[in-house]
């Protein structure tokens, strides 16, 4: 992360509105995406963004320059969003196990041949990101646990490395990798059930 971001943070914390504008311009949508990704609520994401930027200007003066500004912002956002979600979670979180690949004893995947070879990957974005498929995709993302969604956003949208994601969400790299892979497999499975032949 660039040293000018540390300067921006210090200046914003000291009440410099130009520096605050620059931070908002640079991080506003990133904070919103992550907050929305975790809570799946625009209203909650807006409150989280307010809370996060308020923390930036109130605590940014004490920020130690050894860490990356982006990681700190993502970490604050993740913590605020997960706290906000506490108590709002469904009573029993849906297990992802039925959306993960099943295997035979010899290591082959279980299921009908037609389902196993279903390949919808060449279908155009316009078809996959609209209508019924988009609804299925959004519901599949809703179904992921919050920590999984946080990792998915940071890794696949913000394109952070596994190490950077781990630093941002306060988890181990191995936990990040496991969650990411399980999240992608679950989404893939749900999409294939919609787009391919029956399992």
């Amino acid at each position: 992360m660039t040293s000018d971001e540390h300067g921006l943070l210090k200046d914003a914390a000291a009440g410099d509105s130009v520096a605050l504008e620059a931070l908002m311009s640079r991080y506003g949508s990133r904070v919103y995406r992550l907050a929305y990704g975790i809570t799946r609520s625009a209203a909650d994401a807006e409150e989280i963004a307010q809370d996060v930027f308020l923390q930036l200007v109130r605590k940014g003066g004490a920020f130690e320059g050894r860490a990356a500004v982006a990681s700190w912002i993502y970490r604050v956002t993740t913590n605020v969003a997960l706290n906000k979600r506490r108590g709002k979670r469904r009573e029993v979180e849906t297990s992802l196990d039925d959306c993960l690949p099943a295997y035979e004893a010899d290591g082959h995947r279980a299921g009908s041949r037609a389902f196993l070879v279903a390949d919808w990957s060449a279908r155009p974005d316009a078809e996959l990101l609209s209508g019924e498929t988009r609804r299925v995709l959004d519901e599949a993302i809703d179904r992921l646990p919050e920590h999984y969604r946080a990792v998915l956003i940071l890794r696949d949208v913000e394109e952070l490395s596994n190490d950077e994601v781990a630093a941002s969400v306060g988890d181990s790299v191995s936990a990040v990798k496991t969650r990411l892979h399980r999240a992608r497999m679950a989404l893939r499975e749900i999409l294939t059930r919609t787009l391919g032949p029956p399992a």
Partner: protein
Amino acid sequence: MMTCHDVIDVLSDYLDHVLTPEVAADLERHLAGCEPCRAYLATYRRTRALGAQAARLEMPDEMKARLRQFLLERVG
């Protein structure tokens, strides 16, 4: 020889190009002879891109304006 289970377990690492050359070569040998795993890889990769596209939101302009106002009232 890798099984389908072994292949799927390391698919994320394969796409990140962090497998050892030996394991990557073993995986590719498996893919060459396994249509279900080729379909799995193609749809897994596409799912990664679709998930990212679906989640790539921008903060709405009116929300930006409210955030700016909120902050200026408190720190201005």
